[in-house]
């Protein structure tokens, strides 16, 4: 141990780059396998867009777990609720959605997404108070309670909107693709990538550059210590939970537009997907969650292109492979 003078800068934390290189390496490896550069580019763009959407949905889950050791099995419900709420706005304004003007489209899409986030966030408040607070600190009951919450939310959506699939057409100006040479990249995917990246950067900035973020990170590392220093970590947690729920709602809107349909069962499929992402990334790690989401999307897209049969189990195989390498996920943040 070397002696440090008081004026010396703090030792920099070690950077762990291997996980970051993983998706890059995977993408590069696929070039020769896929053969054509244009389809590779299209697939890579598709994976990135899909990955960003999954990341938006999964980020709240991983933070909530990291911060408060709460595993929310009902996280998928926020996704579905977000998507359904968006239809409330999008259906009456179908004319502006069909109009061939980017601004008119965005003027409807933006408020729809904001309303979805608000409703999901408010629902998050209710869920935290009603379902999670009473069984705080008890894993088994948490899982059972939130699973129950998922069922109730899903069934309520069925009761309110009916069991049929609701179409959710993309706005006209977001249809079609940008054509660069012989590469086609869907416009909506570019938008999804931009939003995802913005969310990721915003989360990183809040976590790493603000006092709030400092408290959250400290809470992830050692909850008791932060409490002992006099911060109300429960309130912090409620804030994170609501933000995570709101992000899930946003992800739900984006996913529904991506698939151009809304159905209550989307929460089931996506729950599994975001669980895999969160496990791969390491519970509680935002960076890991980001990489995990991109990896899952890449495996789904490349796998679906190369070996369609394998696509069914490709996520499981990816998870197995990552956990063999790092049993606690790519970045093990929590000591739990």
């Amino acid at each position, binding site marked *: 141990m070397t002696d440090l003078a008081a004026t010396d800068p703090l030792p920099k934390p070690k950077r762990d780059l291997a996980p970051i290189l993983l998706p890059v390496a995977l993408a590069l490896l696929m070039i020769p396998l896929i053969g054509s550069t244009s389809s590779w580019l299209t697939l890579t763009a598709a994976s990135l867009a899909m990955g960003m959407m999954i990341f938006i949905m999964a980020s709240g889950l991983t933070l909530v777990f990291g911060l408060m050791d709460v*595993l929310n*099995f009902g996280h998928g419900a926020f996704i579905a609720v977000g998507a359904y709420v968006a239809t409330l706005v999008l259906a009456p304004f179908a004319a502006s959605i069909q109009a061939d003007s980017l601004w008119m489209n965005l003027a409807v899409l933006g408020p729809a997404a904001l309303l979805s986030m608000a409703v999901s966030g408010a629902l998050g408040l209710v869920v935290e108070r009603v*379902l999670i607070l*009473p*069984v705080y600190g*008890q*894993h*088994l*009951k948490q*899982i*059972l*309670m939130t*699973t*129950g*919450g*998922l*069922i*109730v939310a*899903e*069934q*309520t959506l*069925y*009761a*309110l909107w*009916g*069991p049929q699939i609701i179409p959710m057409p993309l706005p006209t100006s977001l249809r079609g693709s940008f054509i660069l040479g012989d590469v086609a990249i869907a416009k909506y995917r570019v938008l999804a990538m931009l939003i995802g990246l913005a969310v990721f950067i915003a989360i990183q900035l809040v976590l790493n550059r603000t006092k709030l973020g400092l408290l959250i990170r400290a809470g992830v590392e050692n909850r008791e210590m932060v409490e002992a220093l006099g911060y109300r970590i429960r309130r912090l947690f409620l804030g994170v939970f609501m933000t995570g729920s709101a992000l899930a709602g946003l992800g739900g809107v984006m996913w529904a537009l991506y698939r151009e349909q809304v159905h209550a069962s989307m929460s*089931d*499929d996506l*729950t*599994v997907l975001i*669980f*895999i992402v*969160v*496990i791969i990334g390491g*519970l509680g790690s935002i960076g890991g969650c980001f990489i995990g989401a991109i990896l899952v999307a890449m495996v789904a897209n490349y796998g679906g292109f190369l070996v369609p049969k394998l696509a*069914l*189990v490709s*996520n*499981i195989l990816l*998870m*197995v492979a990552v*956990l063999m390498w790092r*049993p*606690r996920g790519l970045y093990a943040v929590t000591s*739990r």
Partner: protein
Amino acid sequence: MMILSGDPPKSRVLTLLLVVIILALAATPFLFPGAKALNVAAKICVFAALVASYDLLLGYTGSVSFAHTMFYGIGSYAIAIALYGMGPNWAAVATAIVTGLPLAALLALAIGLFSLRVAAIFFAMITLAVASAFQVLASQLSWLTGGEDGRSFQLPELLRPGTVLISKSLFGFEVNGRIFTYYLVLAISALMILALLRVVNSPFGRVLQAIRENRFRAEALGFRTVFHLTYANCLAALVAASAGILNALWLRYAGPDTSLSFSIMLDILLMVVIGGMGTIYGAIIGATIFILAQNYLQSLMGVASQAAGESGLPLLPGLLHPDRWLLWLGLLFIASVYFFPTGVVGRLRKAGGGKSAGGTH
């Protein structure tokens, strides 16, 4: 007491309840005529065993698995595929048993070694992921599993309804292959429940409870917790697969809806919680209450929904529609986890002044 492994119900009301249930199940073919009653009774038997095996995991080790229907489905599909492919003979039944059960155990071993090694919380998530992949796989490999339609098959001669084993002239009741199958289901389910009771009251079962209460401490005492948890997972998977075999034999069909769907997993969870976690007896009570309610209350919901619709109330018809059965189930589930974490058995034992039931934290 030997047969109960020294773990009696410990409550007079509970004992009475269990005796009534078991007698009713044993006498169903003669007491309640008609196919529906027999179907309900057979389902109660199968689910009592299935839920008891899940209780071994949830109640005794405290780990939540979402893959239990997968093992149940493996059993169901094993016998369905074997009898469909090899024709209705006993060799097919034997083949199903010697392939289905080891397959379930191996898969449970793999999942256990993989996810129980790190954090217990991984287990719930990984089982959910694996189970959903398996479900997709089963519906996609339609050449093998029949896809969404599932597989219907014929039973061996002895188990068919047309086979008369004891003619009516002898006792005044006709005992045919169907009734024989019912008793087969009842007997094997009962045996499995007794075996599980033996397991949880063995030293091995005590270690499981110790792990549930404090895994770290159990490890510090020198128990290899991963070994114990994985072993329990494999045992539970074996019983679940056997229950799946019984269920498919009874239904003469295996498909995603009857053996793999997520809603069955929820039913199992609910039965465990209603009956009482960590008691094994809770499985019998939970399965009986739940399946009776499912079969006879659901039709009541339809009536209520119609009445609400006719009186012009908003929203209520949709909420009371029989298809929204799961909504009320979910609410019931949350309420029972919150208010009755020890379930019916725990309540009865407490009321009887006996030793308080385990299974809660």
